[in-house]
């Protein structure tokens, strides 16, 4: 990343009565290509750079940001920062730190993929589309088919002497297909996220998307009632991601998490272990330091059912009398420091999918849920989501079901896990990179006919 000179800004800040100041720069360069019917349909070239500053005035932290880096008006920036600090009232104060510790460095940038030509990446997207059509005559359209990659980094510098920079890159492929038979229409999608080009397999992605759509073509609804439920790895990871904010100490301290007061207690079955590991290779959530400059480390959030720790930044750590867990992150340079997981996942068990079905005998296997941004309450843990999947009968996967809903309470569900499979999968990165194996739940409520 291109360094910027902060000295003049820091000096001006001091002169204007700002006690300490910190500058954060986020940067990314990316390209993505979307193909349709054997041709490039859309091509995007993106470069993004933004700067934010936070500074302490009269003991309170103020934030500002700008994307107009070529014409920064330092005076204006400092006065806006002071104005914002002036109205802050939080009882727990944010601080600016430098503890002069060297973080364990990990390789987050794979430059090999950047050397592969754009043509080859376009060819990959075209190959995904071609493969999808070749799988079955019922594949009627490939409505999204894209390959993209992004590289970037963040830089943090403060008036106490902190000066950190980390670069990373990631690539992704995604396709969505439409299967049609008579009046019946179903869609299916698949994706890969990795910084190694060799992890991208056009044919297997096409197969995965196509089979999801094809298997659902004959789906019907089913009767309402409670069911033993096997959640696929993707569905379980979707739910974990949606409820991950309950593990944020910020939400706990703000009285917005059902997990407050549960530290050290059993909040899940004995087999349940949840890990936050920022030091995994080739994972989108990996970081060697967080957005306050704290070194990150691997930690057990739930171990054998016991809640071991919440995720902390410096402020929440101080309030709880513990150290930051290195989970202080901003959603982007535009946002204040908050808390987010890194690579956050349910530790895999030993069951294969078919063993899980055998053990459940009769129930449903849910392979897709929709409406995650709306159909759940992250505070109460209640969820009710549009779902589809398969009936499981006599320990075997039977007919497809759709147009049903899956409802329950996430925190009750963690105490009702009857089996954990070994098929750990990470979903598309969001706030953190979340993964889960498929898990078997004693009872969830299905609504259908």
């Amino acid at each position, binding site marked *: 990343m291109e360094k910027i000179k902060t000295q003049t800004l820091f000096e001006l800040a001091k002169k204007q009565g700002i006690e300490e100041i910190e500058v954060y720069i986020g940067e990314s360069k990316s390209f993505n290509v979307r193909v*349709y019917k054997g041709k490039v349909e859309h*091509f*995007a*070239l*993106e470069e993004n750079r933004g700067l934010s500053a936070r500074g302490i005035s009269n003991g309170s932290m103020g934030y500002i940001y700008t994307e*107009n880096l070529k014409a920064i008006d330092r005076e204006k920036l400092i006065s806006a920062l002071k104005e914002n600090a002036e109205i802050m*009232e939080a009882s727990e104060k944010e601080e600016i730190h430098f503890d002069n510790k060297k973080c364990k460095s990990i390789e987050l940038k794979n430059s090999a993929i950047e050397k592969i030509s754009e043509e080859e990446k376009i060819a990959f997207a075209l190959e995904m589309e071609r493969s999808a059509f070749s799988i079955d005559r019922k594949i009627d359209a490939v409505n999204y088919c894209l390959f993209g990659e992004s590289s970037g980094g963040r830089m943090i510098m403060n008036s106490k002497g902190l000066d950190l920079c980390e670069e990373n890159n990631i690539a992704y492929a995604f396709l969505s297909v439409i299967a049609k038979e008579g009046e019946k229409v179903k869609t299916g999608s698949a994706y890969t996220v990795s910084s190694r080009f060799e992890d991208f397999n056009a044919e297997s992605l096409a197969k995965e998307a196509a089979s999801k759509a094809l298997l659902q073509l004959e789906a019907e609804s089913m009767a309402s009632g409670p069911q033993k439920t096997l959640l696929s790895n993707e569905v379980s990871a979707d739910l974990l991601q949606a409820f991950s904010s309950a593990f944020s100490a910020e939400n706990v301290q*703000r009285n917005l998490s059902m997990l407050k007061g549960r530290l050290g207690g059993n909040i899940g079955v004995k087999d349940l272990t949840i890990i936050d590991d920022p030091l995994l290779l080739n994972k989108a959530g990996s970081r060697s330091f967080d957005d306050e400059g704290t070194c990150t480390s691997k930690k057990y959030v739930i171990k054998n059912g016991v809640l071991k720790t919440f995720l902390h930044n410096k402020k929440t750590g101080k309030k709880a009398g513990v150290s930051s867990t290195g989970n202080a992150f901003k959603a982007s340079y535009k946002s204040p420091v908050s808390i987010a997981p890194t690579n956050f996942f349910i530790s895999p068990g030993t069951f294969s999918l078919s063993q899980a079905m055998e053990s459940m005998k009769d129930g449903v296997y849910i392979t897709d849920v929709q409406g995650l941004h709306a*159909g759940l309450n992250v505070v109460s843990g209640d969820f009710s989501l549009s779902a589809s999947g398969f009936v499981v009968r006599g320990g075997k996967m039977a007919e497809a079901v759709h147009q049903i809903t899956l409802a329950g309470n996430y925190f009750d569900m963690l105490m009702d896990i009857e089996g954990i499979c070994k098929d750990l999968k990470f979903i598309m990165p969001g706030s953190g990179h979340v993964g889960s194996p498929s898990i078997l739940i004693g009872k969830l409520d299905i609504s259908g006919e």
Partner: protein
Amino acid sequence: MLKQNVVMETLDAALSNGADFSEIFVEKRSNQTIGLVGGLVENTVSGQDYGVGIRIIRGLESVYAYTNDTSTEHLKNVAKKAALALEGKEKERVLDFRRRVGIPLMEILKYPGDVGKKEKVRMLKGAHESAYGFSDEITQVRINYLDIVQNVLIANSEGLWVEDERVRTRTSIQSVAESGGEMQTGHFAPGASMGFEFYDTIDLDKYARDASEMAAKMLHADFAPSGKMPVVIENGFGGVIFHEACGHGLEATSVAKGTSVFAEKLGEKIASGVLTAIDDGSMPGQWGSAGFDDEGLKTRRNVLIEKGILKGYMVDRLNGKKMGMAPTGSGRRQSYKHAPTSRMTNTYIAPGKSSFDDLLSNTPRGLYAKKMGGGSVDPATGEFNFAVMEGYLIENGKIRKPVRGATLIGNGLSILTKIDMVADNLSFGQGMCGSVSGSIPVNVGQPALRVESITVGGRKER
């Protein structure tokens, strides 16, 4: 924002490898957020977004590039690099610009920047007091305030030059009620395309009390029922049902590829005769409004469905080209980081002739969905879902005991024929809609209506 010659040279560089069309979108946007937790200001950020998006079209192919570095040389380089992704024979000429500056749909009386932060905080604290003081069971209140002034310049190689300003503000209030180890929430978030004067036109304290009332009610409510049943959906944000069940499927984004369940159905009867639906981006002051769309066309009122007959789609420039249809002022994008595409603005079901009481008295048993949350849809299959946050059982045509949230699911094509009664009390609700071109402000609206049968995703067998 950018000088005319810079715009001209950038548009020209974008056409350098041969193309039919080039467009530049310059955006300068000031944002101010203030967050209160427990009545105290916990965070406040002000900032400026500034960037340029360049779009090039040749035939049905498009390239989009964006950058925050708006120096002339850099912009020309970005445009040239983007142009390399397309190869064409003919090089179009950039025409002279016909300048148009947007006349505000509504005069802004109090620019957000002219109102002191302390005054904003004072108002939010008042709302906190109203929400927190509602009952002893309210244990937390979170308030997030936002104001935006977005200035855009849209120019293209056909000579279009449009400057527009969009001013918006919104305050979201979330109350948490707690008792006996259980927590429930209530939520309201009014917003408008107005300045700070918006808060003179609404009673924010009432919204705050309503959020707390909802949380407290849900704390003592039973689970919602499961299975198919008639549902009476309240006016205002209830319009989310049309937004998901049908609206997305009428966006050219999915119609152009023939992948929407509503493709090739113009002129056909697709809904019950009581249903008329409109998308109108030109409504003064409304949350989803703007004088011009993000491709520089004047926004307007588009009738989508009239008495059950499909009348039109929401069309942007590129998809219009694919469909052989004129754009409808529906091209929208979150920011310069997104290529525009057809999106909804203020979408609503027109008032009908029934009264709210008629809806209830014709429903011996069912669910009354009072407060809705968001939803989603797969336009290819028409399968949609949306959340009910606060519900009540209907028994013998009367509203009875409250029930907790549940998701409602269905298929767009079939649900439109099942909306069998529409009341006369149209109102609107505000939301953020996420799709291909990012997250944008939209209004949903409707009078109360009745769906004769829909699957309710509750947890209680009847």
